[in-house]
């Protein structure tokens, strides 16, 4: 238990561009022949400027047209951890995945894995159309590293999970695509490795199937197995990763808590996030708002935002008339999902003509750690004066606390409902039944 189940040490992968990959045998012979005669390589007519990777590129390799897809990647994974590997396209995620799956080898470095590994980069690898469902279960299982007797033991479960019992002895080329995918996933779902390496692209197909995939992965994670998960979907990452490796331009930042990794992915590193957004140029969704009152700028004043701390927004609002009895509010949402809720409050002094600077504070301890987007509105009882729906990303970081009562499971959503508990015993006289809630009982505050 003391040693990590996966140790990745200084793993680098050098790729060569162009010359070798696109070569034909004839080209290779020409090159050899030229070398033999001491002539210049006939195929190397490109000047320095034509190089695909300029020598000063941060990922440029030791020779022209080579580049480091991964450079000095080092991280550990502890047993039972669900590690999310995130990064933009081309950052090196797939290369890392291929190396971890042993599809290709690293150019440098070393990885130690202490457990049986199964990697799922695709479902149904090696399915043969002419073979029956039964035969394909065995073949696919063996390709994924199972022994025949292991498949024997799980065969009935696999068939049941796939829901294709009636067609199990029919060649899979006669299956509908849905049946095919279900059968393929059923085999993958019944692998029993200690370490599971999964690519998110696995979760293709209809929404229901995706849900089934993710549910199964959640089961695997819940049973204490170690999962490495490559994903673009931050919601999925947030809902079941316990830690993240963020990959950028071939380099990895390891050991990140999930929210800050997600923040990096979304381009807002916690240290220097865009804390100020010019709202004057943002498109308004409803043109009949008029322009008597306009949001000019929004700022995130609390920085970084911790779970327990208040979230402060500074808003610059331009008003061309003075309006009394206004309501200022913020939409709080999760990226890509519907709005979580709204915080709104009356503007006691109203707005005066010209620029107004308003400070909106949302009490801390209500939002769980994660990434959110905020939007703002200003209205009175008759009309909206101005509103911009969720546009401003911000991150709530976990509280720096050892207090076990503040524990939050990723699957619990985003809202911490404030609550209190009172104990009512039948022999109580009724007096003092609802004691004032202790700070602990109210959650974090």
């Amino acid at each position: 238990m003391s040693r990590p189940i996966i140790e990745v040490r200084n793993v680098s992968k050098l790729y060569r561009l162009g010359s070798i990959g696109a070569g034909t045998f004839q080209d290779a012979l020409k090159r050899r022949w030229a070398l033999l005669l001491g002539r210049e390589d006939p195929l190397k007519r490109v000047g320095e400027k034509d190089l695909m990777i300029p020598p000063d590129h941060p990922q440029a390799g030791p020779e022209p047209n080579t580049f480091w897809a991964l450079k000095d990647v080092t991280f550990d994974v502890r047993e039972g951890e669900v590690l999310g590997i995130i990064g933009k396209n081309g950052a090196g995620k797939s290369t890392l995945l291929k190396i971890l799956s042993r599809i290709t080898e690293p150019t440098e470095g070393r990885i130690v894995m202490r457990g049986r590994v199964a990697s799922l980069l695709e479902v149904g690898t090696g399915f043969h159309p002419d073979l029956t469902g039964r035969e394909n279960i065995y073949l696919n299982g063996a390709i994924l590293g199972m022994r025949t007797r292991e498949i024997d033991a799980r065969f009935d479960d696999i068939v049941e999970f796939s829901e294709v019992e009636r067609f199990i002895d029919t060649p899979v080329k006669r299956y509908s695509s849905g049946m095919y995918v279900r059968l393929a996933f059923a085999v993958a779902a019944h692998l029993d490795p200690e370490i599971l390496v999964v690519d998110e692209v696995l979760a293709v197909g209809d929404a229901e199937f995706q849900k089934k995939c993710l549910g199964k992965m959640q089961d695997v994670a819940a049973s204490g197995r170690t999962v490495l998960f490559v994903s673009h979907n931050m919601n999925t990452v947030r809902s079941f990763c316990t830690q993240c490796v963020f990959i950028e331009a071939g380099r990895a930042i390891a050991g990140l808590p999930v929210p800050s990794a997600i923040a990096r992915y979304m381009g807002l590193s916690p240290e220097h996030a865009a804390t100020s957004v010019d709202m004057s140029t943002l498109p308004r969704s409803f043109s009949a708002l008029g322009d008597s009152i306009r949001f000019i700028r929004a700022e995130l004043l609390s920085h970084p935002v911790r779970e327990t701390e208040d979230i402060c927004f500074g808003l610059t609002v331009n008003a061309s008339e003075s309006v009394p009895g206004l309501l200022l509010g913020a939409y709080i949402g999760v990226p890509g999902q519907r709005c979580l809720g709204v915080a709104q409050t009356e503007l006691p002094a109203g707005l005066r003509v010209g620029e107004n600077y308003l400070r909106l504070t949302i009490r801390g301890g209500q939002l769980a750690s994660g990434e959110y987007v905020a939007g703002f509105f200003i209205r009175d009882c008759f009309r909206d004066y101005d509103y911009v729906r969720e546009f401003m990303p911000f991150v709530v970081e976990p509280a720096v606390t050892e207090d076990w009562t503040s524990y939050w499971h990723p699957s619990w959503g985003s809202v911490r409902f404030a609550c209190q508990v009172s104990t009512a015993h039948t022999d109580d006289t009724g007096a003092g039944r609802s004691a004032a809630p202790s700070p602990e009982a109210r959650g974090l505050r």
Partner: protein
Amino acid sequence: MPAANYELVIEPARGWLNIRWRELLHYRDLTLLLVRRDFVSKYRQTVLGTAWFVIQPLLTTLVFTVIFGNVAQLGTDGMPHVPFYLAGLLLWSYFAQSLPAIGSCLIVNSNLFTKVYFPRLVVPLSIILSNLIALGLQFVTFLAFWAYYRFGTEAGGAMQANWTVLLFPLLVLQTAMIAAGVGLWLAVITSQYRDLQHLIPFIVQIWMYASFIIVPLSEVPERFRLWTALNPMVAVVEGTRYAFLGKAALTPLHVGVSAALTLAVFATGLAAFGRIERKFVDYI
């Protein structure tokens, strides 16, 4: 596999022969299932099914008998035409089936290799094994024809099987090693240069004429014969004829040279394959 002391190390390959034999053993079920896949997928939805394994060499023999035996009147060491050609074709078809399949195995299975890891040698091994089944069926057919010609025809009197028949399994092994050795080399080269893929059928065809299947080695002047040992398939073909028909132009030196060459090509093929098996997906 016990998890406690199971440890897998991934690092750049070093050394000359990078074959993880134990892992290959662990994947023996996969090997057998791939054999089954090859076998089943080839003959499913055919009326005659596995009978094709028998029909193919018989048709070739028929063609040879008519064209080379009767029309071109090429000699057969005084043997009846049918058993002469059948004996030559027996291990040759094993070779000719296995070589191109192994040679293209990396390209053909690239969708598999780029998605999941298993010892790459499993695939060539399964090709060797599944063709071995075909060889078994063809061998039975050959024995039937041999028996008919030996005991049922007058010309069969010239056919003298001898104790070297017991060494036939060694010839099978040698054929498998040549096919694997050359095939792995071809696989290594075609994974980088696709050109060779188009050449393989011609290589096999020319190789057949150079393996003395149509004419016996005795047609070659004696001083040139040892040169033919450079093609180890000559020893295989002639060796089969010697064992079952009792006539061949082989010398112990010839056999020795072929055996050494076979070992060399097998070992280097394995080494070359071992060198690229863990990185060919980068450029395939």
